[in-house]
């Protein structure tokens, strides 16, 4: 099960100045091996303590931090009311809860007004983190309900088994540690962006329809507070993961902000399933032709461009590395 954590700070501030605070703290904590993948709108830092095997072949001990330098993201309506936006995102905190606790303790010392948000709907401020930090360190602190329950591991076991049985044996695939994903992939994220709407509830059905048209099977929809996560098996047996924003406002660049667009769907990984993604996006844009596909290497694809690529006989996996053409739309 994947859980994402976010550090939220005051909205509307230039985040370039604080871009590497978390990296510096992690280095102080001993995570001195750092590989950073810089993508202009955000940079992804992969950090590790030591190197027994090759750097990318060990995903379990690696922390993945997104520094949102230019990306504007408000995860929930409550965060919007409080005037907060995302500064950092930890894309997979399952199994790394105690490291995050130590990190937050140090981070909130310097930035006492920031909030930590887990996508299961929990918000933590400095006082709460301090009280958790002072007590006996428990690796399940993030998932512990605020009311008391006798055995937290029992609670989690029930939760996991019910979801796994619901998903009909697909349970293992959503746990990144058990689906044979031992190495880290350098990520390219694709986003389907469209006109800003008041409510994005119910947009998930759009992409489910596109997935079915593109011959994807075993579609699983997991609800979280700010988005739904869709998992589907595409026709080369790989699992595709799509975040469907329901509450989250996610505007990657200024250009998109000026167009008055925002993200509806985020496809978290394109490498290895480029042709499947092309098919999904193609069938999506057939129905919703005003939307645009955006990849975080700064490429935009309109419907006509996707059609052109899709109908080209010599299409290959390199289609995501298009030369940048700003003036097409």
């Amino acid at each position, binding site marked *: 099960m994947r859980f994402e954590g976010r550090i939220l700070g005051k909205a509307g501030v230039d985040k370039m100045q604080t871009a590497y605070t978390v990296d510096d703290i992690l280095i102080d904590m001993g995570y001195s091996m750092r590989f950073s993948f*810089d993508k202009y709108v955000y940079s992804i830092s992969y950090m590790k303590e030591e190197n027994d095997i090759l750097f990318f072949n060990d995903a379990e001990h690696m922390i993945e931090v997104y520094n949102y330098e230019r990306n504007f993201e408000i995860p929930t309506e409550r965060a919007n009311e409080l005037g907060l936006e995302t500064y950092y995102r930890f894309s997979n905190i399952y199994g790394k809860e105690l490291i995050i606790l130590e990190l937050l303790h140090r981070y909130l010392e310097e930035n006492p007004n920031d909030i930590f948000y887990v996508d299961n709907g929990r918000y933590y401020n400095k006082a709460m983190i301090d009280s958790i930090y002072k007590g006996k360190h428990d690796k399940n602190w993030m998932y512990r309900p605020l009311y008391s329950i006798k055995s937290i591991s029992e609670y989690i076991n029930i939760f996991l088994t019910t979801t796994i049985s619901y998903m009909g044996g697909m349970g293992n695939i959503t746990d990144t540690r058990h689906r044979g994903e031992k190495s880290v992939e*350098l990520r390219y994220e694709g986003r389907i962006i469209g006109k800003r709407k008041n409510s994005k509830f119910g947009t998930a059905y759009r992409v489910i329809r596109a997935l079915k048209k593109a011959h994807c099977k075993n579609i699983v929809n997991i609800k979280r507070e700010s988005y739904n996560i869709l998992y589907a098996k595409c026709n080369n047996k790989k699992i595709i993961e799509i975040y469907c924003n329901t509450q989250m406002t996610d505007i990657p660049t200024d250009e998109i902000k000026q167009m008055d667009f925002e993200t509806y769907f985020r496809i978290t990984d394109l490498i290895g399933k480029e042709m499947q993604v092309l098919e999904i996006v193609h069938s999506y844009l057939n129905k919703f032709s005003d939307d645009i596909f955006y990849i975080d290497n700064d490429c935009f694809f309109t419907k006509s461009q996707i059609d052109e690529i899709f109908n080209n006989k010599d299409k290959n996996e390199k289609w995501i590395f298009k*030369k940048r053409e700003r003036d097409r739309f």
Partner: protein
Amino acid sequence: MGWSVDILRKNGEGNIQDVKNIINIFMSRGYTNCVAYDKGRYHNLSINKPMFDDELPWFLEDDADSILANVDLKPSDDWWSNERIRDFPERFKGYRDYFDFEKISGRSFMLLNFFHEYFKLVPEDVLWNCYSKDKHFYTKADIDKIYNKKEWKVEWIYVDPDEQ
């Protein structure tokens, strides 16, 4: 003035796996602070070995503690890249450069170390010293021969591999 070396491949196509290979090799040799700048069609790599954990690359004194590289994810097809591979000898026709190291001066030992490891993973690639007078090519066998010598010379990258 910078003097760079290129790595050639049959169709000139790099991919994400190459970036990972390069970083893996350097990470295992103590270059613990690496950055890849995503420029769309190519990646710009900065590879550094800081003395202290948070030392910045521009304060590193030794040349061999840092290097810059560029990896093309899509083969470039402009005039210049076609012009420079036009005079290739028969045995390397059809090869294109997909990856280069910038400013190799003072870094020849670390590069020898790197290429020895790199050619184990991708044995069919070729190293090309494009700015030397005779434009030498180094295959895996050449690199292995130089690597296994008792004495390493700093000038190995400027000398014809057959004469070494």
